[in-house]
């Protein structure tokens, strides 16, 4: 067992080195428009397979899970959540993230004592100050250590990931302190799987309606999922509990600071044309209205921010 473990470990280490060398965020992002998905063809095929699996297995199971009464459902969810604590805590320590360490430990202690050994999630109630539920994994630890995320990878069954996070997932699985405990007590694979399965089903249940709704409106579901995964991951790694700045940091402003673009937008406005028409044709009652409309829409150069393009209402009329 130890030999195979060290083999896996060596493989993961090698993979890590390879990412660090190959994943150069600067060059790859400019080439791929920030997508960094060189295996897109293969990924899309795996995604198709995952979607089928979801339709025929995970979705029905999640629907069934939702129908269960609260009593077996919630304690099971909480237990599976508590089982994740050792990995989270280990990673929080590796990241030297004091806030996360405090939160994870505090939550764990409260739920183990007042929550009757993790059956009830009392830490999230108002009485204990709504302690946030933080998960740290080795992918995040690697990110904190400065390893770039590398190409986007679609894993069978597990879903969207990146090369770095896949490696992190493997290391988490191998080094999970619980797996040592399982081994000591002779618990087989079927016993070990209960945690991840319950967590997966709970997560799927949580997003049951949203995923279906988003999928129905999407033109390219694969690309949407890829973007959602990346954004969520950035949020998790930035380490802030409620990171309200995520969306603003993500908006690249350079696209809009282009002078030529701004000129084109100003030229697009028909306001000046309307004004000229008014001047040459003199005042007619119908035109007065147009002048009013034009004045209302007149672009006065006020920008919502230097980082953003000028707001221009003339387009609004176009649509109606």
């Amino acid at each position, binding site marked *: 067992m130890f030999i195979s473990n060290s083999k896996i470990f060596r493989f993961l280490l090698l993979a890590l080195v390879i990412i660090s060398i190959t994943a150069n965020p600067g060059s790859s992002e400019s080439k791929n*428009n920030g*997508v960094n998905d060189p295996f897109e063809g293969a990924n899309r095929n795996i995604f198709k397979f995952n979607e089928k699996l979801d339709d025929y297995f995970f979705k029905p199971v999640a629907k069934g899970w939702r129908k269960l009464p609260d009593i077996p459902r919630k304690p099971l969810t909480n237990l599976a959540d508590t089982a994740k604590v050792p990995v989270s805590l280990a990673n929080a320590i590796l990241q030297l993230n004091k806030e996360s360490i405090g939160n994870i430990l505090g939550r764990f202690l409260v739920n183990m004592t007042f929550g009757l050994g993790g059956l009830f999630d009392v830490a999230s109630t108002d009485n204990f100050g709504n302690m946030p539920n933080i998960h740290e994994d080795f992918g995040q630890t690697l990110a904190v250590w400065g390893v770039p995320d590398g190409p986007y990878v679609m894993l069978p069954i597990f879903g969207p990931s990146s090369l770095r996070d896949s490696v992190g997932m493997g290391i988490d699985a191998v080094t999970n302190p619980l797996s040592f405990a399982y081994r000591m007590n002779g618990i087989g694979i079927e016993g070990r799987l209960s945690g991840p399965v319950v967590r997966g089903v709970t997560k799927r249940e*949580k*997003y*049951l*309606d*949203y995923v279906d*709704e988003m999928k129905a*409106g*999407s*033109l*390219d579901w*694969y*690309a*949407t999922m*890829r*973007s*959602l995964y990346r*954004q*969520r991951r950035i*949020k998790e790694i930035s380490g802030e509990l*409620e*990171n*309200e*700045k*995520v*969306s*603003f940091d*993500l*908006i690249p402003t350079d*696209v*809009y600071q*282009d002078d*030529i*673009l701004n000129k*084109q*937008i100003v030229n*697009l406005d028909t306001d000046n044309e309307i004004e000229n028409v008014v001047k040459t044709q003199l005042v007619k009652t119908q035109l007065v209205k147009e002048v009013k409309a034009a004045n*209302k829409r007149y672009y*006065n150069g*006020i*920008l*919502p*921010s*230097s*980082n*953003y*393009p000028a*707001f*221009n*209402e003339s*387009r*609004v009329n*176009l*649509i*109606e």
Partner: protein
Amino acid sequence: MYKLLNSFVIIFSLIFISNASADTNTEESKSFVEKLGKEVIETVSDERLSDNQRRTNFRYLYLNAFDNFYISRFVLGRYWKRLDKSVREEFVKTFNDYIVSTYAPKFKGWRGEFKAVDALIEKNFYNVKMNVINKDGPALKLIWKIYLDKNKNFKILDVNIDGVSMLVTQRAEFMSVIKNNPNGVIGLIEAMKKKISI
């Protein structure tokens, strides 16, 4: 000395005034978003409405409360520059139709509780945090990104749902569609039209 004192007084009063107006605006930005939520419940969510009427009402709210022109430009990213006027107009028009036909049906029968909990100013923007509690389904943390236009109307630029920006997600999707479609942006417009007609 007297001059110095005077300038201090002026500076302090200026700071006070600017702070006061900032405070009222942040409060107003919160009530703007909450009012929008109420309007959605009143005019879009009602199950008795016909689908057509729901779309019309939603379109009205969307065009008034959101900066639809900015959003259209943003989601096209670098492709916007390369388009001529007629294609841009066609895109903005189709994209608005697409938004309306995608989002309006989602609000059918929606009855969530929502509360704007906080508003922060960042640069010239208001970030209004909102908690939404759905009847069934998870509670969501929303952040609305809003600015005041020159007519002193609030306009929404982006909605961030649990750390995911709708604007960024939409752009990522469109970039991929354009890249994989031989007709580029025209192909995207056609794909949107097809989706609307379903």
